[in-house]
């Protein structure tokens, strides 16, 4: 793409990322959540692929990283599910909620309030797991599609 597009993409990239992670982390307080945030993050990666050369970007974002992200997110989710059984309750039981001192363990205040990030027990953690999984999976999809574009020689300039 042209220099203007590349410069603009480079400028926007950190903001897209921050916005994506914001949606993932605030999933239990605001609209959105793991899937939506993960999709936003993957959009940022797609933006980089669209603005720059496939060959350059694929050296920075390796396929293996996304593979690991995908599997790690899924494993994290199911581990929290099984943890509920090991704590003597049931599958996916929220065993971290309302325990003072624990991460995300504060009790939710009654009535209207601005929202406390440090609440929700395993729900924010499950959101993070889903976010990591979705960013890996969607980036992999982009990756595979571009791999075939390059392989078939549709664009000799490597989609640049």
């Amino acid at each position, binding site marked *: 793409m042209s220099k203007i597009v590349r410069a603009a993409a480079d400028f926007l990239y950190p903001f897209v990322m921050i916005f994506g992670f914001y949606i993932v982390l605030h999933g239990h307080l605001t609209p959105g959540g793991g899937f939506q945030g993960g999709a936003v993050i993957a959009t940022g990666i797609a933006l980089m692929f669209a603005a720059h050369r496939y060959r350059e970007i694929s050296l920075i974002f390796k396929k293996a990283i996304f593979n690991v992200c995908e599997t790690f997110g899924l494993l994290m989710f199911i581990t929290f599910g099984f943890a509920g059984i090991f704590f003597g309750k049931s599958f*996916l039981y*929220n065993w971290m909620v309302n325990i003072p001192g624990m991460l995300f363990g504060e009790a939710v205040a009654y009535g209207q309030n601005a929202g406390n990030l440090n609440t929700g027990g395993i729900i924010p953690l499950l959101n993070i797991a889903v976010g990591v999984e979705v960013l890996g999976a969607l980036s992999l999809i982009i990756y595979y599609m571009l791999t075939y574009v390059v392989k078939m020689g549709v664009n000799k300039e490597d989609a640049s």
Partner: protein
Amino acid sequence: MSFTQHTPALVVGIPLLFAFALPLLGKIHEKIRNGLAIIGMLLTSATGLYLAYQVFATGAMAYVFGAAAPDLTIPPDSGGIPIRIIFSIDAFSAFMIVIISIVGLMSTLYSLATEKLRSGQADFFALLLLLVAGVIGMVSTGDLFNLFVFLEISSLAGAALVAYRIDKGLAVEAGLKYALISTVAGLFFLLGVAILYGQYGTLNMAVIAQNIRLSRLDIIALVLIIVPMAMKCGAVPMHMWTPDAYSRAPAAITAFLVVSSQAGMYVLFRMFFTMFNLNLNTVTFGWVVIILGVLSMFIGVTMAIPQKDVKRLMAYHAVSQSGYMLLGVGVGLATLGNKELLDACGRTAMIGGIFHIMNHALYKGLLFLTAGAVIYTTGKRYLNDLGGLGHTMKYTMIFFIIGALAIAGIPPFNGFASKFMLYESVFLFNPFIAIIAIVVSILTLASFMKVFHSMFMGPKLPQFSEAKEVPASMLTAMGVLALLVVAGGIFPDIIVRNIVEPAVNALLEQSQYIGLVMGAK
């Protein structure tokens, strides 16, 4: 407090855990990958069989996800409404889980040998475990939206597995067809679920069943739900995906796809009997199911006869055999409102139909695996290219004979046991339909005679002089299924009394299913 309380969650959780771990850990070494695949499936099957044992021994189980106790279906502060996702596993679900456990384990065992030299095995087994998890989830969940999620998991994993070995693009075409049709059907299913949710404000099947009013919208929702499910189980007007998907998927996957489509049939019966039961005009809807069944039986078998591709032929027979199950349960549904008729023939027809689900999964799985063994050894799938394999592949031939006689309903194999129950009871209901069923059975036998003759009989062909018997793990998988086919034919009464009759009673007794979640009244 023990693990036995958690089996309904573990039976879905274990395959998911191994499916998620496989793509990462499976890349380390092929032994770890194969070990994870087979251990994951073994654990799933063991948990599934134990869960079924629990249900048959002590009655239906409910499992509430995320609750403080797994059997706390109605939280004290919810105002008498179940708010969480609930798995309701009654005898019919347990019956399906038995089938899934057996066939799933055999498919994995068989795949270990057939996929040995292929690439991308870690993802292959991950998808297979995902498919197993999806199908088990479909038959155990008591929540309509959860059912949709598991339906999509099983459809997408199934479509990906069909297309996994690209096969010059033919498998991809079949997989794409399956994916497209299942997705469209899934969306209609979702629309039906949305209509029910809009009316009753809940997604729990037991609560909806308790409050159902049968408004015009309910009928629309029912039709939107049963048509995708009839598609999924391959009933005739919607059967066009089965021959492609079944014939192009790897053999072990086809064997499990048969079970996956029977899960669609499970949902179909669950909708009629548990959700609507006598609120419905059972005679009309019973005849709808009977007609679907008769069409599937007859068109399936007549399409199978001219086929030259061995797996495509068997795929059409799968369509034809699902007709028997629809016929049996359809007769049960049609006679549901009439106590005398139900006791005279409806109940036996249902037992025959439900028993046929199990028998079909076993012998059709066996037949697909033998066809896969022949293709594995010779690389040929057209009957005209095959011949004389009986000289070298003796065990495969014996297993094929067992499967072929069972599908044709010849004693002493399990197909006879269930088909005989169907003939007897359907004859009392409507003799004409029973005669069609018998004729279809004879045509099935004729068709399999042709396959047997062109695959195994005749002189040893020079191009197959180096053909030899398949590896031991494939033979084991086929052998276990063959053993179960014979056992089902020799001791049908034990199976019917202990597994099938409780399943049929669970379907007929709507109040038990409601009571499981809502508490006994």
